């Protein structure tokens, strides 16, 4: 069935993302801040979910204040050794990737 196939594809894609070179972990968070899926351990998951929730809300309000029609689609935080990529829709998808040398 088409929907089952789609669901399987989504799972396959998530696995591929998590297995890409350099990716430390991925997590999916719902709008309430509850992590739904994560490849990190519990404490790290909660930490990331909690901290990024605030940052994403701030970024979103910034974008919307400037132009109310607009909305935040992605947010990238680049640090010295790794990068956090957040893609937003209804749900937040967060990936932490180690930067190549």
């Amino acid at each position, binding site marked *: *069935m*088409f*929907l*089952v*196939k*789609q*669901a399987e*594809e*989504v*799972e396959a*894609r*998530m696995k*591929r*993302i998590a297995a*890409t*070179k*350099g*990716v430390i972990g*991925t997590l*999916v968070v*719902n709008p309430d801040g*509850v992590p*739904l*899926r994560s490849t990190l351990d519990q404490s790290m998951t909660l930490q990331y979910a909690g901290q990024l929730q605030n940052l994403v809300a701030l970024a979103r309000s910034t974008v919307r204040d400037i132009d109310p029609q607009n909305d935040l*689609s*992605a947010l*990238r935080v680049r640090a*010295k050794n790794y*990068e956090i*990529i957040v*893609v*937003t*829709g*209804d*749900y937040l*998808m967060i*990936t932490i*990737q180690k*930067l*190549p*040398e």
Partner: protein
Amino acid sequence: KDTATEQVTEDMLKEVVDIFISETDTFSLLDIPGTCVSVDADDADAIIARNSQYEEVCRNRAGHGKDVDRSVQTLNGATKNKQVQSNSLIMVDAGKSVMLMMIFINVLNTMTGNIPNHRTAITSFLAALFKYPAERQTFVSGSLKEVEVDGNSLNTELEWELIVLSEKFQHCLLAMEKSILRNNSQPQLAAYRQLAVLEEPGCPVKPDLVEPRKGGTESSQSPALECLWVFSCELSRGRSVSCMAWNRKNPDLLAVGYGGFDFGNQTPGLVCCWSIKNLKWPERVIHCDSTVTSLDFSASSPSQLAVGTRDGSITIYSVHSQDNRSQIVSSRESPSRHMGPVWQLRWMQQELSSSGEEKEEALLSVGADGRISKWFFFKHGFDCTDVMKLKRIQNTKKAGRNKTETMTGSVLTALTPGLCFDFHPTDSSIYLTGTWEGLIHKCSFSNTQQFVETYSKHFCPVNCVAWSPFNPDVFLSCSSDWTIQLWKQDHSKPLLGFTSAQKAVCDVKWSPKWATVFGAVNEEQLEIWDLNLSILDPVIVQPAAPGVRMTSLLFSSQTDCVVVGDSVGEVAVYQLKNFSVAERSQVNFSW
């Protein structure tokens, strides 16, 4: 049970106590009567008489006296060890994770026999379940037992399944995958797009990446090919690449057709659409029934991809979205479909004959049954008309001297397989086609019976013909006879021939940027020729990995990169470096 305890006193101890002992009856536990009777007993006579009577009976029995006592020994043979081999049992671990939604769908299926196709029905069911208070919930379904689950975990599971279905999330995933991969392969992508390499602030910049930028103005560095990346995934590994095509509208999308694992008829083929933005996994995967031999994107509707396969059928797919409805139409049921592999397909802008201004797009194909057909859509299907039949021509030796003689001299109506064709870049009614016999015919749409001209020099199948994009009179042809020939339109003998390796040349393409440069792929190496520098040797030679044959070649239109497909399913992208050719828009070949 009362236990009465009495104090035991001194007097009681000195008392005289009377104890009475009596005997019980004898219990008989085992009684075996004897079989011997004394001679003096009363009934001894009767017993003796009976014994003698019994002996009489035994004596009179038939066969008495014939019994002989003998002894026998069984011989146990010596044992011998023997070894037997059998196929080892291959054990495979298979696991599958099942989502709650799939159980629900299966249950509904068995209950009502009607598969719910509507996404909204399922999502509304899940949403309704999701709204229950997060306490102890019972999840009841037709054939499952009543299961009590903890409310919290059920909620998150259901929510996960809800979002997996939503398109927005899938879009999220796509964007995420591309961002991550771009991070990983930033230098190669930048080189492809000819941008400067991003320098990390605070990180030491690698010297060898910066050098080519400075060395670009020097012409003393020799031209070279640098492999930027390789498109390869587990689906395509081991399959041979048979054809490739760029999308006409989106220059980042490359469709690659794969054959089966061995070049046989029945193995299913595969088409993968790769994007420059995702180097690890193709954007679209289409499974075909048989080996894919040719493909082309349409120019007027850029999401339509026509795929020709080895069993002669042409299918048009829509690559717009990855779902089951991607196949638009197939020529499998058409009565006039090709009987052999479809070797090349092309969408061409055709002028409608009556109104000269309008251009309509038509699909043309050449197949191994010797027909060049033009396909058109009608109400429910897909049918074709023959534009040309490639007749086998006798007297090929006279082709150069007198053209009309060979035309009338062809008595045979046998058709010869056509392997390739190419349309003139400016005059869309003229096209060239190469055949199995090594002849190249120039044909016109207005004449479906005869060839306008025939060029013969190759004596093996012509694998590819290509008009030069800069000079409208010149074309190249390559063949399995190890040579590439350069022809001019009105000369029946080639102007130049190129040989460099003793292997069949599979593909030849002109560079879209430089007028005198072309690339050729023979089985063991990729060659880039520049006619300005040398007509005897290729300028760059890139050998293939040992054991691997290169099979097809494409130039990239926007950047100076070359895409090469090989027989193990890998599509490698090379960048031409230090290629300092003066860009001229027109080159005159004068001999």
